[in-house]
């Protein structure tokens, strides 16, 4: 059974690599399908016939006149050259690329900071620097939903900055407080600490780690290769959780990020913006899948290169 598992080590990384390659194509394809699935002509979403004339010319100008496949393929080829199309409603006719270029750094900073909080918690749990009794406190804090934590952060910004809440300094504070809210709310930090602690505590009980300790080696260096795939999986799930929460944090704190852009696009049925924002999220999600697959492959290679442990017959 274990030998089968060892032989089939490549299946999960292969699924992840396949999904990573598929996501950035599949997500815009689904959104394109959605545009044509909605009742009415897609061009009427840009400008309803009640207030617009010349819908046919409009459809031709926006590449909507030759069906979903043509629209999708031309959008994808433009996207490959860095042109993500135009906004349909929010800033009608303006290119979406500058909006994305403004949004991505804010989201990256927000999620990056929140993720570093989670990584610190995970490292603390793995090394027992963060004691197990802290888990109850983190879990209690983690019951608070992201929207409530974000509101508290927004209140703090509003009280301290008032009308100048969009100054560079205030934006930095918003991102910092937003990251704190994102990291603590909805059990993000609690889940990361608990999950990593559970993995490392079960590894600590294994004989190879105990032997390593007797030889004077560290626990982490011994347990890491075995724990790495599970931790990579957990961290990917946590990062996705942070990206999901980023939508709420960005809207409440008025941070011009990818989540805020997606939310505005969804509310306004601006498919130009929704396509680009979901494509951005799909790329990020695909990169996370690639990273997890890379960790799994590296660990599998390490295991194959290491001398096999042979059981000695009693």
């Amino acid at each position: 059974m274990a030998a089968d598992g060892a032989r089939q080590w490549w299946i999960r990384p292969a699924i992840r690599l396949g999904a990573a390659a598929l996501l950035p194509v599949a997500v815009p394809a689904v959104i394109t399908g959605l545009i044509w699935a909605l009742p009415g002509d897609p061009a009427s979403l840009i400008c309803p016939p009640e207030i617009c004339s010349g819908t046919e010319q409009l459809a031709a100008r926006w590449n909507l006149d030759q069906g979903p496949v043509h629209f999708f393929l031309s959008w994808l080829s433009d996207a490959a050259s860095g042109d993500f199309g135009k906004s349909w409603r929010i800033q009608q006719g303006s290119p979406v690329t500058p909006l994305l270029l403004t949004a991505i750094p804010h989201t990256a900073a927000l999620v990056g900071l929140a993720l570093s909080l989670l990584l610190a918690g995970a490292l603390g749990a793995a090394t027992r620097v963060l004691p197990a009794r802290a888990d109850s406190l983190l879990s209690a804090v983690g019951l608070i939903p992201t929207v409530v934590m974000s509101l508290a952060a927004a209140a703090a910004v509003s009280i301290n900055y008032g009308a100048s809440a969009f100054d560079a300094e205030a934006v930095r504070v918003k991102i910092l407080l937003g990251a704190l809210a994102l990291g603590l709310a909805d059990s993000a930090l609690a889940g990361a600490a608990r999950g990593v602690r559970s993995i490392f505590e079960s590894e600590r009980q294994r004989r190879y780690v105990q032997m390593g300790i007797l030889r004077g080696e560290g626990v982490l260096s011994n347990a890491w290769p075995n724990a790495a795939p599970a931790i990579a999986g957990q961290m990917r799930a946590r990062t996705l959780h942070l990206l999901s929460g980023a939508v709420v944090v960005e809207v409440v704190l008025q941070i011009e990020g990818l989540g805020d852009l997606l939310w505005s696009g969804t509310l306004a049925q601006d498919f130009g913006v929704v396509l680009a924002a979901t494509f951005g999220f799909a790329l990020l999600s695909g990169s996370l899948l690639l990273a997890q697959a890379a960790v799994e492959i590296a660990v599998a290679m390490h295991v194959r290169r290491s001398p096999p442990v042979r059981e000695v017959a009693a």
Partner: protein
Amino acid sequence: MTRGRWLLALLALVFAASWVVPGFFAEPHLPDPDLMKRLAPPSEMPPFGADDRGRPLLNYALQGAQVVGIPALVAGLLVALLGVVGGLLATVGGGRVEGAVAAVGELLGALPRMVVVLVVALLVPRDARGLMPIALTWAILAAPGAMDEAAAVAGRLGGAAFVEALRAHGFSRSRILLYHVVGLNLRPVVVRQGAETMMQVVFLEIALSYLAIAERQGSFTHSDDIHSWASLLDLGYKVVLDLPSWHALGLGLGLIAMVAVTAVTASAAARAR
């Protein structure tokens, strides 16, 4: 200890039900404004005070319960049910199905859930807005995790070997699966997963409605003439603008705490033996 946990969970459930059930009989519209009672505190307009137009906050709380009640329950039950299926598959040795579930879970879980939810929200026509499609989407996205965890629990039991061992003791297959596997071993996992999903759906509704209020738009989760618990948070948040709406903030946060406590106590009670 065990009896205490059950009692606590029962109290929390009864308390939560005392909000949700009357919600279904709540008036579809808020009463007419009475500006004389604007932001009246609970002492002047029991039990929770009034909003900025003098309408009772009790109506907000009941309408909000109506919005989340059934969809959260259905989502929680769906996740719990699929968790049981995942656990049973691991017990009866459905290796291929398990593999397929893991692969589907991998693909479903590859995107941030909020992104998927917003795409689903785009699909729902404006006049058919409601929390149910979003809650079901959330449940489907949460189900692979629940199935995985339940399968791990069943795997620790010994999977198919556990069933065979109990069969050798003379137990019937259905008793082993329903009582020993589901009732005694999967119960803590599936109840916790179900309770967490219910809580997440309620919090998701509050978040989506709050974001819509922040942008002065209608919510995806309910029609415009109904108010979500997010309206209480929105009104309460205005204390930052020196509006005396602490009572709305307290009620909004209290309702959120009630949902969280109910989910936690239900999970704890299911864990108790």
